[in-house]
């Protein structure tokens, strides 16, 4: 009984040992290359459990297939119109074909060395095909920034895949700059432009304010003119209504006029009047002599 247990234990231990020697896992984040006596035998890109001949007959080389970023050094290049431009480019890459990667570069460090040259070369070629005005332009419709990035991506993708078994998933420009001397000229232009803008802002403000004030004055005058017109019309209706009553005076115009004049004179001399009158005038004549009155028969 004891012997059976020991035997099973030994078999289990040996079995595990054998399994470890002949089995290997490939994760979803990996790809593997199996070499037999140093010669590449097969590549495995699907995750799962795999079998191999034990070492040293077959060896497994695993590659992490997740995305890595590689930032090339900041570098100056020239556009189609020979304008210098400084770019800091990066790529996001991954191992795509383990065999080609193994044959061409083997390690991440070596891959990045190769990518450095490839990026510089591609960058120079692509940027050299485009004018500076395609990177930045007063008219946004003429900007081809994303198209330029896409051209770089396609060229890098083709070259990296073919030469190194690398898939370039994305290319980006982290920094787009001009050289130090150019910044001085840019600042001069910016200052001049800003000063012009400042003047324009002030002039525009004054012009707008003047227009608003003129508009206010014009509208005020128009309104008061309209109001005066309406007032005249109101006064006119008053005069017209009054005229109806004047018709009644036609029965004896002279008497009506006399009454009107008496009213007018009362009104005119109502306040603070100084009257200078001849002593011969009625009724002051009484002061000079007694009137001679006789009863009417």
């Amino acid at each position, binding site marked *: 009984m004891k012997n059976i247990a020991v035997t099973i234990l030994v078999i289990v231990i040996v079995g595990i040992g054998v399994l470890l020697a002949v089995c290997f896992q490939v994760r979803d984040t990996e790809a593997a290359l199996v070499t037999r006596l140093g010669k590449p035998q097969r590549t495995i890109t699907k995750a799962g459990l795999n079998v191999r001949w034990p070492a040293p007959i077959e060896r497994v080389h695993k590659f992490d297939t997740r995305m890595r*970023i590689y930032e090339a050094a900041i570098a100056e290049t020239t556009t189609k119109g020979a304008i210098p431009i400084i770019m800091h480019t990066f790529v996001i890459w991954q191992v795509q074909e383990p065999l080609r990667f193994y044959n061409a570069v083997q390690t991440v460090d070596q891959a990045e060395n190769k990518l450095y040259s490839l990026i510089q070369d591609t960058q120079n070629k692509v940027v050299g095909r485009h004018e500076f005005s395609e990177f930045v332009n007063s008219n946004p419709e003429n900007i081809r920034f994303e198209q330029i990035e896409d051209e770089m991506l396609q060229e890098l993708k083709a070259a990296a895949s073919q030469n190194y078994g690398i898939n370039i998933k994305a290319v980006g420009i982290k920094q787009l700059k001009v050289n130090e001397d150019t910044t001085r000229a840019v*600042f001069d232009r910016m200052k001049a432009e800003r*000063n012009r803008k*400042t003047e324009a802002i*002030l002039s525009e403000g004054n012009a707008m304010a003047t227009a608003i004030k003129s508009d206010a004055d014009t509208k005020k005058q128009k309104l008061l003119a309209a*109001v005066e017109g309406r007032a005249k019309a109101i006064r006119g209706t008053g005069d017209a209504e009054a005229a109806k009553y004047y018709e009644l005076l036609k029965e004896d115009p002279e008497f009506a006029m006399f009454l009107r004049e008496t009213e007018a004179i009362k009104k005119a001399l109502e306040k603070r009047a100084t009257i200078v009158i001849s002593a011969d005038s009625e009724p002051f004549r009484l002061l000079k002599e007694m009137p001679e009155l006789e009863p009417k028969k």
Partner: protein
Amino acid sequence: MTEQNENQNEQIKSQEPRPKTDQAYKFLSDALRASFTLLKIIIVVLLALFLLSGLQTVGPYEKALVLTFGKISGEGEGRVLESGLRWVWPYPIQEIVRIPVEKKINLALDSMWYYERPEDRLPQGSKDRRNFGPTLNPLIDGYCLTRGERQDTGQEQSDYNIVHTKWQLTYQITDPESFFKNAYVDFADIEAGQNYADVIEDNITSMLQAMLADAVVSTLVNYTIDDVLFQQIGSITDHVKRSLQDKLNQIQSGITVVSIQLDNQAPPRQVADAFWASVQAANIKETTIKDAQSYYDKSLNEAGGPVAEELLAATEDKNTDPKHAEQLWPQLAGQAQDVIAKAEAYRTRVVENAKANADYFRSLLPEYRKSPRLVVQKIWQDTVQQVFDEADEKIIIQPTGNKNEVRILVSRDPAIKKQEDEQPQNK
């Protein structure tokens, strides 16, 4: 006989006590039994520990993937495990990968700001503060290019400006499977005190910073410096967010941009004065326009009140319903109201006067017709009397033809005299 003897001898030998050998054998046997039992216990314990090591916790802000021999297990939604206690076969059969999905992570991007040492932020005139030069060094000073103002000259314009910006990205891992498969995270980098979330954050920071910088650079070339500094900040951050999300989706990163914030933006220090003068000018312009607007409001308000403008428009627009204008006239205020009120008063006065005159005339007319002289004289005398009663000064003079001139001063008001005497002194 000899054989019989030999057998007997052997039997005798075997029946003889062998104290030392038996004891050793017994000890060995006991020891082996004990070791074996111990081994069995150890095996059972190890097996139990091995199985127990498959118990794993998925945190409240995490989701997990189970790898069976390196391959993600499960189908559909079952591929991603929610938080809780989970058991999986221990490594190397299965392993569990936890991804912090709920956590919103902030990431600052300062690479587009000019280089300055902490001392350079000291107030101007400080000993340690270093003044900036007339240029920007592309190796150490960060900035972005923005497009120039569009001018309709019909020519190609490649004018551009320089602007400094600082950004803040908030992101979240929303697709754990894509993130696990595609984003490079090296858990061997884990340091004391760090958890998996920290390692993930550290590992993808440089990639996200680069991609954000790319999104910013490619976005800002489409905007002017005024857009970045003052006018279009909301549109720009939306544009950057869209651009970054597109790029992250393109590489199947499993990351979602929660928000993008433009933390700070400034023109280059070398041209800052000109920019602030421009800002000042904009403020002056605004004040000037506001003053003009106040003048406008005040003028029209004084002229006609709140309805002035509406009334004016109604009177000028021939298509306006005249009834509407008529409704507005009574609502006029200010100067216009005064003019209208005076006109109304005039109308009333004129009509009432005319009516009163007519009534007066008609009331006197019968008497006048009967005795005209008497009536006229009566009215005339009353008039003279009233006029003389109300007059302040009455001077009666003798006609010049008469040698005996008489001047009578009647009821001279002393107050008037006094007032007249004082007036020259006041002047």
